[in-house]
Structure formats: C-alpha cells, structure tokens
C-alpha cells in the first residue's frame, strides 16, 4: 500500500521547453524540504489507552508498536484492587525506523471502571487532559517558545468490552466527558471471542448508540475527489469498519508453516495481522501510517483551540466582573514583565521595525529594476 505523500505540481500552460522553464517557479519541492526537516527533527505522538482492566490494552499497545512498555508491570491482586483509584501512568519510548524518529508517549489509565462504584471515574482522566492543555497554553503564551514540550493527548483509544450488547453506561459516561477534549477512537477489544455475525451486529449497535447519545468520536477526513479509486476504496472500507474489532498478541506462533503474531487455541490459530480475522491492520494503518498527522492537527486546531477560547472567555468574564479593569483586548495570563525585560522588548520591537523598513526599500529597488 502506497502511503507516499501526494503532491501535484500543475504547470500553468504547456508550451516550449524554454517557456516552461521560465514559468516553473520550483516550489513543488517544498514538501520534500518539509520531509527532510521532519526526518531530522523527528515526530512525537501521545496516545492514551482507556477501558476496563482485562480488555487487552497493554497487549494491543505492544502489538501496535512492537515494544514492551509493560515489562515490569505487576498485576494487582483482588484485595489491592478493592481500594484502587484511577491513576494516570505515562510511558515514553523512542522508536526509530528507516531514519525517522518517533517519540511515543503512552498514557495508561489503570483502575478505570474497575471499582464497585464507578461514578465519575473518568474525572481524573478528564483533569489530566485539561492539565496538558493548560500547560501548553501557558508555554505558548510565554516568552521562550523554542522548546515547547507538547504533552497534549493526540488520540485516545477507548476499549469497549465485546461481552456487552453495545455501550455500557460507563462507556457512555467516559466518552461524553472526553469527546470535546480529545480524539476518541472506539475499539472492540478481544474480538476473537466473537463470531463474524456477532461482530457485525455489535458494530452496528455501537454505531447506533454513538449517534443516539450524541458522542463525537474521531471522524476520518474525507478524501479529495481527485484521489485515485484505490485510495477512495480503502478510505470507504476504513469508515465502514469503525469501530475496529481488534485482537492483540505478544506471542509468535506457527501457522501454515509461517511464523505469525497470533493466539494459539485448541480450535485454531487467530492471526493478528490477518484482515479476515480482525481489524488490527486497519487500526495500525490508520493510527500510524495514514492518520497520525491528522490526529495531531485535529487536536491542535480543534480541541486545543476550543480549550483556549473557553479559557480566555472565562478570564475575560471574570475580569469584566471586577469593574476596575475595563479592557476590550483579552488579557493573557502573562507574568508582568519587569523593567529590564520591558526595555529589551522595546529594543527588539524597534529593531524589527527597522528591518521591515529595509525589506520594503529592497523590494522597491527590485521592482524598479
């Protein structure tokens, strides 16, 4: 499957080779430049996994990224679980493949949905997401913006139990609390306990309930009308298989003479990467190979902007309530700069103005020539 970047460079009018040269500006190579720079810089991605314990979350993360982040994990016993509260655990790993570096952060939520009384068990998770937004907001409004650490959660994989008849009340509660803050990708976990007809029915049921409860899960972007048929077909299949029914595996087994990642049962072998067995390949392609950047964009452009607008509105409404300060400009929570930094800022401002004037003069000179 070709996952290459698609660029179209349209020449204005085909004419003689000499003319083309004159009309060809040459910015069609920009994506390649971006590509080279990104390879040097590397990417970062924050993924949250949420769902009841025992749904195969750690196994799936292992299968997706082929790294064992949970080597030292100790499973809690039943007594310890009785007093457990929802925690937030972060694991970071650096993955490199063909020269491209990815700094992957997995945010785990052990304890979610495990207690007898699970009221508001999503609150710690919601607070964590808000905290990351707030930290980014502060960093963005600060002075030194070169090395901002982006810890915002780009995607949340929510694991739905395959044993229910659809969404459970906890699932609905979680998704409604977080759908405006993070991209939610619902998954049907442990899909190897379902026969194909059950999988189909469950997916339909979940889709209906998501509509009914007004939950906004991550929508795959529409592909352009001038894409080739292959790509459009893939995109359609992707949209139709949501929510993905996934299986994860930490072990490699022998199936038909080949070594595959799978689960060995007395009645057969489930292959994780077999499209007829589960949607793992679709999920991996979507998450990593085709939609990773879109997930980050939606987080920055939609969820973060919503948070920012909401935050600023709250601040202005608070300030207009104190009738002392009346300012039409929204006031950012900047630390009040001291006299020295103010002088520096003024000097830099003047420098900028001088440089802009010089640029203008140069442009004029070029046009006159």
């Amino acid at each position, binding site marked *: 499957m070709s996952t290459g970047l698609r660029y179209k460079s349209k020449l204005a009018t085909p004419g003689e080779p000499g003319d083309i040269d004159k009309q060809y500006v040459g910015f069609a190579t920009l994506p390649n430049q971006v590509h080279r720079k990104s390879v040097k810089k590397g990417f970062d991605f924050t993924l949250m996994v949420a769902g009841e314990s025992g749904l195969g979350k750690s196994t799936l993360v292992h299968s997706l990224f082929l790294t064992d982040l949970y080597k030292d994990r100790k499973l809690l016993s*039943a007594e310890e679980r009785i007093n457990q509260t929802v925690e937030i655990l972060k694991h970071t790993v650096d993955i490199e493949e063909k020269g491209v570096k990815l700094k992957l952060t997995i945010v785990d939520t052990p304890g979610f949905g495990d207690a007898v009384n699970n009221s508001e068990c999503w609150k710690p998770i919601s607070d964590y997401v808000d905290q990351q937004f707030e930290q980014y907001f502060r960093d963005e409004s600060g002075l030194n913006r070169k090395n901002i650490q982006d810890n915002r959660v780009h995607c949340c994989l929510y694991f739905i139990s395959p044993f229910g008849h659809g969404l459970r009340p906890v699932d609905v509660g979680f998704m409604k609390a977080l759908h405006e803050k993070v991209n939610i990708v619902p998954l049907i976990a442990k899909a190897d306990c379902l026969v194909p007809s059950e999988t189909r029915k469950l997916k339909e049921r979940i889709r209906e309930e998501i509509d009914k409860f007004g939950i906004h899960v991550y929508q795959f972007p529409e592909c352009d009308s001038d894409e080739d048929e292959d790509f459009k077909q893939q995109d359609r299949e992707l949209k139709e298989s949501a929510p993905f029914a996934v299986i994860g595996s930490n072990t490699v087994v022998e199936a038909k003479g080949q070594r595959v990642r799978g689960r060995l049962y*007395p009645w057969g072998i489930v292959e994780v990467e077999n499209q007829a067995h589960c949607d793992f390949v679709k999920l991996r392609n979507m998450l990593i190979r085709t939609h990773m950047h879109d997930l980050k964009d939606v987080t920055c452009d939609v969820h973060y902007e919503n948070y920012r607008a909401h935050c600023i509105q709250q601040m202005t409404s608070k300030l207009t309530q104190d009738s002392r300060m009346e300012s039409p400009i929204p006031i950012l929570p900047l630390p009040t700069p001291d006299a020295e930094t103010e002088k520096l800022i003024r000097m830099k401002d003047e420098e900028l103005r001088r440089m802009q004037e010089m640029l203008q003069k140069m442009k004029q000179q070029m046009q006159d020539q």
Partner: protein
Amino acid sequence: MGFNLSNSWNRDLCVLGPMDSLRQSPSPCSSRPSSPRTPPCEMPASVGIEAVLDQLKIKAMKMGFEFNVMVVGQSGLGKSTMVNTLFKSKVWKSTLPGLGVPTPQTLQLHSVTHVIEEKGLKLKLTVTDTPGFGDQINNDKCWEPILSYINEQYEQYLQEEILITRQRHIPDTRVHCCVYFVPPTGHCLRPLDIEFLQRLCRTVNVVPVIARADSLTIEEREAFRSRIQKDLKSHCIDVYPQKRFDEDANDRILNSKIRERIPFAVVGADQEHLVNGRCVLGRKTNWGIIEVENMAHCEFPLLRDLLIRSHLQDLKDITHNIHYENYRVVRLNESHQLPRGPGWVNLAPMNLAHASAGQLTSPRTSKACKQAQEEPKYDF
C-alpha cells in the same frame, strides 16, 4: 442429558453391602419391583433391602423432580445461551435489550419454569435470571435484590412448613444453585465479584464459572483459574462443592477433583455445525469451530455433569439441610418461639432487604472461615 439416579440415591440410603453389587433397576414402566431371585432350597443370601431402592426410584419417577437455578452475571456473558445449552432446549430466548431502552436502575429478577422430560422422568426446571446485575456505573449493593429473592423463597417454604395442616409435598422454589459468571479478564476477581461471592456463599450454593472462555488460551485459562482460586481462598469464599460438607472419604476424593477445576471455563452455544461429519453444538469463527462438548476446547461438560448428572440431588440436599436450616434457626430465634405442635406460630415480619447485613450469617460458617485461615493447607 442423563439423569443418573442410582448414584444420587446411593448416598441417601446407606446401602448395606458393597456398592458394586447394586442390582440392575427394572424398566421404569413396571409398577412392581421384581423380587430378589433366590435359588430354591437354600437360605436366602440377602434380605432384599436393595428392592427398596427400586421402590424409591418408581416413586421419584411418578413425582418428578424440581430444580431451581439462578444465573448471575453482567449482561452479555452468555447466561441465557448457557442455560439453553445446559438443558438442550430453548429455555430462554437470547435476550437483547432494545435500543433506546435504558438499563433498569434496579435489578429485576425474572423466572421461567419449564417441565423437561427424559426417559419417563420429569424435571420441573426453574431458571431465574438477573438482568442488569453489575451493569450500572454505581453497582453498590446490587446484590441485595438477589439476596432478598433467595430469602423470600426460604421464607415461603418456612411458612408452608410451620402450618398445622401441611401439604404433602411442599412446592420447593428455593434456589438450589446459583451459577456466577466471571468475565474472562485473565487477571483476577474484580471487587464486585468478591463482594457478591462473599455474601452469597453463606446463603446459597454458588458455582462460579469463567464465562465466554473462548477468549482465553489454555495457558491464560490455567493462570486465571489459579489466581481465582487463590482469591477465593484468601477471602474465605466457600463455593460449591463446599469442603466442610463432605460426608466421607469417597465424597472428599470426588469433590477434590472437582474443586481443582473450579471455576470451570465454559462456552455456550445454541447453534449446530458440521465437524468431521458430526453435528455438534458450537461457535463458528473464521479460524475454527469451538465445540462446546469437546473437553479439549472448554469445560462445559464438567459443568453439565456437576449440575445435572452427578450433583443435582446433592445441591438440593445441601440447600435443604444446611442453608435452609440456617435460615430457619435465625428466623425462629428472632421470633423467640420454637414451633410447637398445637398452635399457629406467628413469625415476626422479616425485613428481607437487611438479610445481607450479616443477620443470617450462621456462627458455624464464620468459625469455619477462621479455621480455614489457621490451617492454610488443604488435604487434597
């Protein structure tokens, strides 16, 4: 299905003589037991007590049996399918809550009664389902409606029993067995499971099973099972077959074998598929067919044998002799009167909802738990 009457009647009668010399029972259609054959002109070698077994058997055939099962577990764990598979008949239609119907806020139990017949023997089977158990966000005290129901049945029986003119055969609606479905997380028992099991094991026979076991490989299954067994031990949860009710060495051996495998990893199916020319009950996936009655695939045959073929009568006996008696003792102590012959005994009205608050914990059971904690080694 196979009702093996001879085994279950054996234990009640304390048969004189070795067990293997059991006489073959006559066909169920005969109304008179055949007399023991004695060679002429010889002292009879036996008195002929074995014939009593036959009489009992005939009577049982006429009367039929009653069996009440309760299935408890979160929705979607295959309870209705399991009941259908166990009794090989559509006892329940697979229930799917309708779209838009909110999950009921309180647990609502409902029972279905069927009469199943096999080889001339009638079984009046009552299955009680508990939809909505453990499905809410806040599942605090979701076990109380179940406990109330069980105690209600005991109460009904008690009221019938203390009447002056009693019915010849008191209708038995007491729950003989509660099958608890544990979700196959592969980790260990959840807090909800522990809370429920602790409370119910004191009142009724509980058989925990690992539901939808087709999502666990064999190694995962064994690891899960041993963790559950450890959890059960550390919380003093005595599931059926209870160790302290073993009557003799034979029982202990038989039951120990069962206790090693509890909880059974079961898969239920109500559809048939063709495998190697045979028609089997199973689930057909893209990577193979899971045969429900194949011991290499799942332990459903063990559950079926336990509940129906070998321990059905034992379940009823323990319910009647132990759980019901415990209830009765507590109730009568409450009303400060022992039933006397003449006179109508009025028991104080019972607040069934508080039954779980430890009132019906028999002192015997808590002592047994202390003993279990002091002697961690079981003689298997």
